Each structure stands twice: as C-alpha cells, then as structure tokens.
C-alpha cells in the first residue's frame, strides 16, 4: 500500500527535473570545455552557471532519491541509493550515476587539496553520470512509456548529442560566439 501518492508523484517528477538539470549542467560543462561564454560576458560566467545548474540538479536528485526511499511502493532500500551491487540493473544505473555525482561534489569541495590531474580525471569520469541517468530514466521510469517522458528524454539526448558534436568538431570555439 502507498502511504501518500503525492510522494510517489513527487519522486517521479523530481526524477525528470533532475534529468533535465543534469542535462543542462552537462551541456554547460561541454560549453565550458569549449571555452564558450555568453555574448557580452566573461568566460567565468559559463563555469559559474555550470556549477549552479549542477548544484540545483543535486537538490532535485536528493529529493528524488529521498522520496524513493520513503515511498514503500518504490521498494528502494537506503543501501541501494549508494551501493549499486545486488540491485536490479535499471536501479543500479541510477545509483552509479548518483555515486559519480557525489564524487564530483566531494572532489570539488577538496579541489584546492587535490592535484589538478586527479580532479580533472574524476570530473571527466563523472560525465558518465548523464548517460547512466538517461538509461535509468528509460529503464526504471514508471512513465517511460508515456509520450511526454519520451519527448523529454529524446530532447535531452538530442541536445547533448548536438553539443558533443560541436565540441568534437569545433574544439575551443571562438570567445563569445553564440
């Protein structure tokens, strides 16, 4: 039995919003690596926007994970939120994604104490969090069969696909080019 359907709906909704925010964060990260910044701004603006979007995605991800543990219908144990082994595959992808994001946060906080190489390695590895989150959405999402979630997922994939293509084909874009 469910205790509160609102929790169930909140979990599903925050999951979708977290995917959107993670996509935005990923996209801004790609833009940062390509040295893009909004016209009329400085380069650090993109980096700050990337960080703010990431922090906001973590907030929604926390709500998503928290409600999934609280809601008995979701049947997610607290251990499964950070330990992916021994859990169903679709859930494990979400857990892996969360672990990678947690690693970015921790290394980000300790950035001044870590070597730049290590920080960059962790940071770039964390970009795997996005495809894992997409797989988690498609496989685990209760709404995965719905048109609206399919639309959101396709839009996210298209956006990142376009940005990664831009990154690979036009490295180090001109400053301020939109």
């Amino acid at each position, binding site marked *: *039995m*469910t205790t509160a*359907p*609102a929790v*169930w*709906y*909140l979990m*599903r*909704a*925050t999951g*979708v*919003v977290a995917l*959107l*925010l993670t996509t*935005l964060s990923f996209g801004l990260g790609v833009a940062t690596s390509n040295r893009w910044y*909004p016209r*009329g*701004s*400085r380069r*650090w*603006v993109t980096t*700050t*926007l990337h960080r*703010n*979007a990431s922090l*906001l995605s973590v907030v*929604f991800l926390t709500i998503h994970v928290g409600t999934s543990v609280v809601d008995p*219908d*979701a*049947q*997610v*144990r607290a*251990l*499964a939120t950070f330990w992916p082994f*021994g*859990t*169903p595959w*679709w*859930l494990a992808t979400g857990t892996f994604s969360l672990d990678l994001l947690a690693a970015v946060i921790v290394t980000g906080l300790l950035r001044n104490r870590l070597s730049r190489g290590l920080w960059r390695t962790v940071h770039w590895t964390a970009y795997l969090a996005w495809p894992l989150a997409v797989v988690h959405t498609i*496989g*685990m*999402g*209760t*709404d*995965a069969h*719905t048109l*609206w979630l399919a639309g959101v997922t396709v839009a996210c994939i298209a956006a990142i696909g376009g940005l990664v293509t831009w990154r690979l084909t036009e490295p180090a874009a001109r400053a301020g080019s939109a």
Partner: protein
Amino acid sequence: MASEQRQRDQARIRTFTRRLAYGAVAATAVFGGLAAVESQHATTPTSNETQQSDDSSSSESFDGTPTQSFQPPVAQSGGS
C-alpha cells in the same frame, strides 16, 4: 570598468539561477501532474470494464456512479 562588467555578469548569473530554480519547481509541479494523470488513466476502468465490474461486485455509490477503488501505483522494477 572591470568592476562594472563583473557586477553585470554576477547579476546575469543570479537572474539565470533564480529563473532556473523557479522553472525547476514549476516543472516539478507539471510533471507531477502528468504523472498523476497517467496513474489515473492506468487505474480508471473503461466503460466496458465498469459494466462488468458492476455486474460482479455492484460497487456503486449512492448516486449510481461506480466507485473507483484506489490502486496504489506499482514500480515497474524495484530495488533489492
């Protein structure tokens, strides 16, 4: 000069972040609503199913409309 530019950039960032946060909250409400509607569709019987249900269990409310028992949403796949 540089200070003004910096202040402008910071204002842009604040505006963007604020709008992003509001947008995320609004999107949560919208997606929550869509999820609720989807769940209702999943649990609401069709007219034929209602007829059959009435024949077998005759669960009608006082005004003659069939009552719909709430079925909790079930995860497609669960945790360990």
